[in-house]
Structure formats: C-alpha cells, structure tokens
C-alpha cells in the first residue's frame, strides 16, 4: 500500500529579476510614487508592463509528485532545470510562489558540506554548531560525538581551529557531522562530489546503510549517473522547471542523456540578420560532435568540430580568427588562432577541431574573435555556442567530481623500478 511521506502539489517558484539585488531602493520608491499619483498611461508604465513577463523566471512550474516512505529518489536535470530550487523549497530555505508541500517526520538537508562551519573555531566547537544547525539535538551529539570524530579521522586536531585543517580533513569532519543525522527524510545536493576515493566509499556506504537498513527516505540530486543508478530506487527528470519523466533510474537516465538539446549546437542567420558590424557579418556557427551510433550527447570522449561561416565586407584584408573556450564561470581554457591570410570580400568558412579525451565534464561556451593584421580586433562574437560535456567512467568505484578543466588521456604507466 502506498504510504507517501512527502507530497508535493502544484509547486511553482517564480523569480522576479527586476526585484532582485541591492540598490533598488530608488526604483522601488519611484514605482511607489508613480503608483501613488496614479500615473499609468505613460510610456514608462507601458514599458514596465511589457518587460514584466521577460523578467520573470519560472524556476519551477506546477511540480507535483509523491515520495513513498523508504524510497531513494534521484533527481536529474540540466543546469537551471530547477533541481536546486526544488531542494531549497523542500528544505524550507525558500518558499514556493504557489502550491503546497506536505510531509511527515523530521526532514534534514545537506545542500552544502560544512554548513555553519566557522574557520576560526575548533573542530570540536564546529561539530556542535553545525550539528545543531542541521537539526541534531544536544543529547544526540553527545551520544554520537565519538563516532563522528572517529568517522572523520581528525582526533588529534579536534581542538585546533579548522582553518589549519587540510581541505580533506575539513570535508571529512563536515561530512561526519552530517552522516550522523537521523532524519526521516534526508535531502542531499551533490555533496558527494568532494573528498578522496576512500572517503567517498565511506559516504556512499553510509547512504546505502541509511536507506536499506534504516529505511530512511532520501532525495538525492546529482550529475553523476552512476551514483544515481547505484543508490536510487526511483529517479525523476526535471527540465525547465517541469517534471518530464519519473521511473526506474536506468530509464530516466537514458531519457536524460537523450534530452540534450542538439539545436543549441547550431545557430544560423538569414543574410543581413546575423550579428556583426561593418567588417564582419555572421551567417552560422555550429558544433558538430563526432558521436558514435546511438549516442546523442557529448561526453568526455567525444571529439567535436566548431564550424562557422561569415561574410567579410573588406577587400584585401589580412584576416585571422581566434576561438576562445570558456567555462561557465568565465574562465578561459584555451585561445587558438587561425593563421593570418589575405582574403577578398566574400563568404569565409572556418573550422576548428577539438579532440576527444580532452575536456573534463562540465558546461562550456565558445566565443569567436575576428582579427585584422594579427593585432586589430574587428568583431568579438561572445558566447556564440554553449554545450555540456557529460562524464564517462568505466570500472570506477569513485563518483566524485573529477578535478581540472581538462581531462586528457595521457599515457601513464607504473612499473617496477629496476
């Protein structure tokens, strides 16, 4: 008999961008003033009305689902699909705009490792503060204190400020506190993506133990499909704030991998409508991944070529192009240039090949720069293509985030020394 422990009904969350951020006192006062004097038919008022829908973001759109007691639900979705917002609502950090969530029992959430940790405080002090914030009771902490310390393996440094801890020690201690939470519903957001392999195994073990032996209900968000298929009894796929699939993890993961928007890989413009200026007019940019049969997403093994076509308005020009690859955090990973060649007025095509086994998993974007005489920029087409690289691992017991921006498959051997 189904026995839901959590019922989410018609939950939506809308962010109003124009209301956000600091320094809006003047705008708010102006708005209030305009409202007060009943000035509505002005240009200003209409403009605001027109912008209203554009400035609203529907992070969650009428989400409805139930979670049964003892279920381990994995939540999948691309960046910006609403996963984090959903978890934040369930953890009571933020409220839904509409809709209602009902539940039974105690709910704890781990949206970050080391919540409430303070660098200046000792490990001991931090166990208490973080534990209390996560909802542990005084007697719980006293009872489990030794276990927590043992699990973290930082006994000798317990009375030292955590700012002197190595990052590994810090993470272990922080997770140890969380591992001894005993809520009825546990919410976890990618916190496994830290620590070394040994520690990860311990964490996964702890989660498995919580769900199988203690019958705890777990909601788990991860980009890591192996972790989801190993741990979860059910999975749910979110896309643009909507649930588009629920079911067995394997099925949902499959759907997730197929949901990558291939149209993002290409942009095309009609003559005269493309971005550009008096020197350059874009016609198309696209990413062409070299996908094996049956695969529709780019993973770390996939090679891809970047192709673009543009119109050059200047005759006899020494022209070169540069391709810049950025992470979503705007860090430039590479900047490659084509040789500078004399060009006539007309259409020009470019292609750059990025090999497989080069980029690490993550979200990236390309920008293209057009340069005259190797030094004078003519046009910089920023963020023209964005794409995601998915993780791929074989025979690995480790589920953490692989470090670094690149993940080359260099030859790397160990052999017995002579």
């Amino acid at each position, binding site marked *: 008999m189904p026995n839901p422990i959590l019922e989410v009904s018609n939950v939506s969350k809308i962010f109003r961008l124009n*209301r956000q951020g600091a320094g809006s006192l003047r705008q708010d006062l102006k708005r209030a003033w305009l409202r007060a004097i009943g000035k509505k038919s002005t240009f200003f008022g209409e403009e605001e009305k027109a912008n209203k829908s554009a400035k609203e973001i529907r992070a969650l759109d009428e989400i409805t689902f139930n979670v049964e007691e003892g279920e381990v639900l994995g939540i999948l979705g691309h960046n910006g699909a609403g996963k984090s917002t959903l978890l934040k609502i369930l953890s*009571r*950090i933020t409220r839904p705009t509409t809709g*209602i969530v009902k*539940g039974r029992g105690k709910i704890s959430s781990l949206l970050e490792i080391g919540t409430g940790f*303070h660098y*200046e*405080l000792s490990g001991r002090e931090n166990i208490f503060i973080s534990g209390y914030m996560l909802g542990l009771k005084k007697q719980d902490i006293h009872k489990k204190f030794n276990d927590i310390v043992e699990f973290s393996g930082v006994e000798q440094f317990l009375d030292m400020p955590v700012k002197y801890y190595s990052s590994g020690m810090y993470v272990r201690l922080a997770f140890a506190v969380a591992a001894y939470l005993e809520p009825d519903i546990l919410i976890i957001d990618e916190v496994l993506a830290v620590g070394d392999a040994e520690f990860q195994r311990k964490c996964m073990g702890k989660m498995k133990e919580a769900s199988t032996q203690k019958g705890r209900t777990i909601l788990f968000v991860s980009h890591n499909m192996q972790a989801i298929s190993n741990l979860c009894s059910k999975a749910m796929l979110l896309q643009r704030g909507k649930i588009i699939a629920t079911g067995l993890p394997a099925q949902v993961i499959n759907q997730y991998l197929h949901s990558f928007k291939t149209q993002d890989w290409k942009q095309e413009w009609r003559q005269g409508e493309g971005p550009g200026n008096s020197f350059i007019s874009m016609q198309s940019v696209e990413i062409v991944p070299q996908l094996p049969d049956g695969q529709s997403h780019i993973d770390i093994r996939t090679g891809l070529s970047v192709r673009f076509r543009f119109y050059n308005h200047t005759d006899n020009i020494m022209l070169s192009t540069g391709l810049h690859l950025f992470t979503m955090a705007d860090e430039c990973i590479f900047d490659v240039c084509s040789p500078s060649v004399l060009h006539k007025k007309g259409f020009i095509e470019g292609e750059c090949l990025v090999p497989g086994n080069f980029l690490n998993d993550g979200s990236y974007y390309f920008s293209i720069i057009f340069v005259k005489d190797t030094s004078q920029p003519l046009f910089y087409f920023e963020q023209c293509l964005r794409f995601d690289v998915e993780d791929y691992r074989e025979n690995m017991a480790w589920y953490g985030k692989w470090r670094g921006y690149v993940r080359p498959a260099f030859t790397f051997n160990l052999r017995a020394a002579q």
Partner: protein
Amino acid sequence: MEWEIKPGTRWFELNLRELFSYKDLLLRLVRRDFLMLYQQTLLGPVWIILQPLLTVFTYILIFDLIIGIPTNGIPPFLFYLTGITIWNLFADIFTGLAGTFVNNINIFSKVYFPRMIIPLATTLLHFSRILIQLLLLIGVILFYYFSGKLVIKPETWILAVIPLLLTGFIALGCGLIFAVFIAKYRDLMNLLQLLVRLLLFVSPVFFAVSLVPERLRWIINLNPLSPLFELFRYALVGEGTFSIPGILYSSCAAIVLLLGGIVLFNKKADTLVDVV
C-alpha cells in the same frame, strides 16, 4: 501529514515551540560570537571593559575639560560611564542586528532553522557583555562612595533592571526592522551609522536632561530612550529627570517596536533569502 510548506508566512504566525527546540543552537551561537569577538586580539575579553573606559576618557576630554558640560554634582567619570554603558547596549544590539541577513546569507541559503535564532543570539551576546560592564560600573560607584564623593542608595539599584530590559527591547525591535529593510535595500547600511550617531545626540548620554532648555526638551523626550537612560542613571547614582508618563511612553514604544519587529522579521524572513 504532520507539516506543510506553504507560499508565505502569515503575519501573526510565530512557532515558539520550534524556536525553543533550537535553544542549544542559540546558546552555542552566543558562545561562538563571544569567542569570535576577541579572537586574535591582543587583550581579548579585556576589551569589554576597556572599550567603555576609553570612550569615557574621550568624553571627559571633550565634554568636561574642553566644552565644560556640567554633570550635576556627579563625578564626570561616573556620569559618562553610566551613560555609555546603557547607550552601548542599545547601539551594539541595534547595529549588530542590522546585518542579520546580509552577513548570514551563506548559512540562510543552505540550511533551515528559525531565522530569529541569529538576532536573539546577538542580543544575548550583548546582554552578557553588559553584565560584565555593570560590574565595572558598580566597582566605580563603590570607589566614589568610599572616597566620599558620592552618596549611594543601594535600594534603588534594582530599578536599573527596567531601563536595561526596555532598552534591550527597543534595540531588538529596531534592529529586526532594520535587518529586514537592509536585506532589501543595502543603501540603508550607510544610513545606519549616521542614524546611530544622530540618536546619540538626542539621548542623555553625555548630558543630563535637566540641562536641556525647557523649550527644546520635547526633542529629547520624543526619543523613547531618554527617560530610560535618565532612570538608569537615577537608579544607580541618584541623578536623573524623568516622569512616570515618560517611562510609560518608553515602555509602550518598547513593546510596539519589539512586537512590530518580531512580526515583520518573522513574516519576511523566508522570502528575503531570494532577495539578498
């Protein structure tokens, strides 16, 4: 189902039982803030009494020696120390609370606990500091008593509890209200220091109300802190001008501000996370 998460909090919905269940966190936070306040300072907690002492010396230099504001027969050192002790309680709580959201957004956006815990911890922290400062004050009073410069009436000392509590309430109430507005409009952070400084000039901290000309006294009396500060000084050193209606006015202001602050903070706490 045992609990619900709904779009908003109602205006008068304060879950006291839940708040109480987080009392251990509250006490830990007070302890943490106390430790943090003097972490990596040379003199550590000595600052709790050193800070008012240094302020007193500045006041003696400026208001007593240079400007020459009379202190109604009370030794200037003692006069300023009483004023500063209770003024600091107000100013520290008020400015401490103003940054509640701005400074704790990292925690607020990652874990849920009743947000009221943070301002309560700040308030308790400053009350614990003032207990130490009161010991200093009593020490100074006794010093002047034994050196024959002061007549004391220990039976009125207990009255000092009233202004201390009410001042704390006013500071907590104003701080909560300000915390909500600062979360939305950072600009107000700049206004905060100015406001506190202006308030100092209309509070009887370095002057006595009896020195203010009759026709201007209403400005001072409009400030609900004034009767409290005068009562505090009267209770401890026997000098002060206050009336029962004045004290009642302050009490009403304290209750209105405190309740208003709690209701506003409680109503807005869960939506402000999206704004900060």
